[in-house]
């Protein structure tokens, strides 16, 4: 068990290092940050001085090494665009993204499982068929289009909800929250639907097919033969067994929600880390891009690690097999 975890952690660290190397190799192709940082009146001397000051005259491997050296000490450098430490900006932006991702994730899981179970049980019903057809939209329409459609419907035409921003936020010291004000909650509705729709339909379709699979199993038939009520069969026996693959997918999708937030945040001008990243790309803000990419890869690698370890606990067969094998 311990050996397994250690091996997985070592693998994760290697993945992180490679992601960073590839990222730094790519930054040169995004463009030259110097051009954005100095006005059109700048002189060749200014360019030279700044390039040297930022270490951009060094090969990318050296730049990467310096980044790692500082990152290990918790220093992610200074944003070229905002002229402030990257870590401060990330900390300031993280609450917006995490709150949005949390609400989207909860919506996706709750509605995804409920609708999945419903469409599996009432497989032939009209309502279930309508839900299944509509869910195709969630899977196939791109996020930005859904966001724009929602804005036009609910902000421009109906005027019910705000089209951009986070509304009024309450500052709790290290964290700003939109949960405590009416305008903050209203501002959350459209972006969280936009961000969570894909995951919701994904979970719903997965739950449905898993559920249909499970309902065909012998033990369900035996359960019914025992005279158990439908509710007990569906929720106590069938749903529980459906959840193993669903949890895996949910785990991986948590990362995807935070990563996909880039598009939703751009559409809704949501002041989170995704919007920060888009700004950074346009400006060739290398320190912000590097920190964001590392953060996201740490998150993905971490989630994968946790899911792997969770498997160990949720699925007894894994444990039995391993113990039996050695």
């Amino acid at each position: 068990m311990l050996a397994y975890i250690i091996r997985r952690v070592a693998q994760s660290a290697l993945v992180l290092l490679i992601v960073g190397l590839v990222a730094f190799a790519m930054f040169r192709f995004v463009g030259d940050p110097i051009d954005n940082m100095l006005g059109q009146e700048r002189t060749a001397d200014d360019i030279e001085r700044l390039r040297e000051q930022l270490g951009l005259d060094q090969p990318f491997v050296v730049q990467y090494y310096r980044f790692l050296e500082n990152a290990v000490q918790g220093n992610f450098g200074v944003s070229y665009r905002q002229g402030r430490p990257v870590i401060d900006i990330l900390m300031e932006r993280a609450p917006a993204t995490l709150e949005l991702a949390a609400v989207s994730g909860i919506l996706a899981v709750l509605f995804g499982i409920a609708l999945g179970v419903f469409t599996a049980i009432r497989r032939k019903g009209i309502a279930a068929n309508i839900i299944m057809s509509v869910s195709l939209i969630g899977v196939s329409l791109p996020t930005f289009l859904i966001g724009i459609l929602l804005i036009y419907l609910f902000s421009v035409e109906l005027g019910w909800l705000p089209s951009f921003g986070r509304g009024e936020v309450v500052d709790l010291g290290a964290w700003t929250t939109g949960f405590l004000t009416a305008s903050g909650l209203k501002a959350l509705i459209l972006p969280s639907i936009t961000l969570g729709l894909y995951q919701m339909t994904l979970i719903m379709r997965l739950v449905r097919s898993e559920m249909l699979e499970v309902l065909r199993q012998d033990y369900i038939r035996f359960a019914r033969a025992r005279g158990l009520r439908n509710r007990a069969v569906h929720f106590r026996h069938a749903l529980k067994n459906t959840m193993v693959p669903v949890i895996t997918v949910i785990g991986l999708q948590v990362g995807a929600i935070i990563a996909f937030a880039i598009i939703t945040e751009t559409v809704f001008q949501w002041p989170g880390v995704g919007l920060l990243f888009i700004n950074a790309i346009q400006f060739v803000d290398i320190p912000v891009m590097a920190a964001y990419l590392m953060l996201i890869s740490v998150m993905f690698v971490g989630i994968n690690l946790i899911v792997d370890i969770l498997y160990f606990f949720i699925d007894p067969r894994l444990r039995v097999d391993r113990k039996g094998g050695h």
Partner: protein
Amino acid sequence: MKTTTVLTLTSLLLATAAPLSAETLRWARSGDALTLDPHAQNEGPTHTIRHQMYEPLIIRDVTGAFEPALATEWAPKEGDPNVWVFKLREGVTFHDGADFTAEDVVFSFNRAKQENSDMKELIGSITEVRAVDDLTVEIVTDGPNPILPSNLTNLFIMDKGWTEANNTVNVQDFEGGEITYATTNANGTGPYVLESREPDVKTVMTLNEDYWGIGQFPLEVTEIVYTPIQNAATRVAAMLSGEVDFLQDMPVQDLDRVSNADGLMVRQAPQNRVIFFGLNMGADDIEADNIDGKNPLADVRVRKAMSMAINRDAIQKVVMRGQSQPAGMIAPPFVNGWTEEMDAESTTDIEGAKALMEEAGYADGFSIRLDCPNDRYVNDEPICQAAVGMLGQIGITVNLDAKPKAQHFPLITDGKTDFYMLGWGVPTYDSEYVFNFLVHGREGDIGTWNGTGYDNDELDAKIKSLASNTDLDARNQDIADIWRVVQDEQLYIPIHHQVLNWGMSEKVDIAVDPEDQPKVKYFKMN
């Protein structure tokens, strides 16, 4: 006697009437100010935000003309052409209550000349700034500088005492990531006071009740809420849904939608930016073409033919949806040196262009790469696409390479492109600025944006002499002569002047400023 009292009373009432009715201006555009430090960044949106809180000695009004701000009068010193004398406004206070004096002006100019300042190039000719008395300042330049006032319209004045008390005497080291008190706080003499600011999210400013201009300017807005909205569709949606009263960076394709919406309108004016193509004529052979050992662009007939192949009216109508003015020279219309005749010199004549190509020995044409940005100017890439088709008509096969601006502009400054698109604005409103950057040969700090390889020593000497020529008539004649050479040599292929569009709800009334720098003190609210 009585009437005067009544008049005084009325004017006092009028003066105080504006702040009584609370009017909030909700203002959005695509980007935010990078910092509040008045001298740390020389960038449009950053200056725009500063202009609400800080003031320079002189500003430009909505027509681009000079208007006294912190200085009331200015003139070259009699008997010494190297010195400008500025008379300062009396009775002005900073937001924190401190008096504005000549000492603050001297301090601010010296601060703007520091190593970390981004404004230092604009005032590079200034060698000394001295206070003669509390309300008179003399600015000494390294030679006669007739257009010095043009370089001062974004040079903001800070309070010396405030910077000392808050440890921000030095300009923020922007690249080094320094945060000083002045990057997040503001204490100017301007019409609005900073209330709160979250970078990239929201900036709130309220009316300065002690502003010296109360009664002189409308000042009908009592609170400004500024929010950057990056996505163009969201920006327009926010305007349509009534969440924003005033919008800059309006997408061209949504102009009709906004102007047709109830309660909204779009105002437009020519912008201080001209779009053109540059051609590398100086090299013996160029990389981007398929002709070996020769540079077709070195032949003025080819350059003329290329210009004649471009149908500017079609670009205006189809690509720009009417949102441009075809150009014949590479200076915006309000710049000193611009003439209507020269701006009309671009003609479209495919047959004539073909004849010129044949005369130059390129009857079969050639192929060349065109470098174009895709995120800098209004419809930049579509303009280049249109040019590809138009040049194809005279046998020139153009391979378009469109890239983000961060990759495009280094090609020009590093001399790695032979045919490129560039746009140019003239902050000084004088042709000298255009010549210095785009016509003068590349030598150190001068000619930095001239990617044409053109280097004419005689012309360069003439350009250099403009800086110190105090005889304005002779200077204007020189400017006209230099433009004649630029036009005849077809140094650049002008395309059009960009048009600026501001969206506003009907309760807002403001004329479009060619600098794209709205100053809220001029806003009227219905």
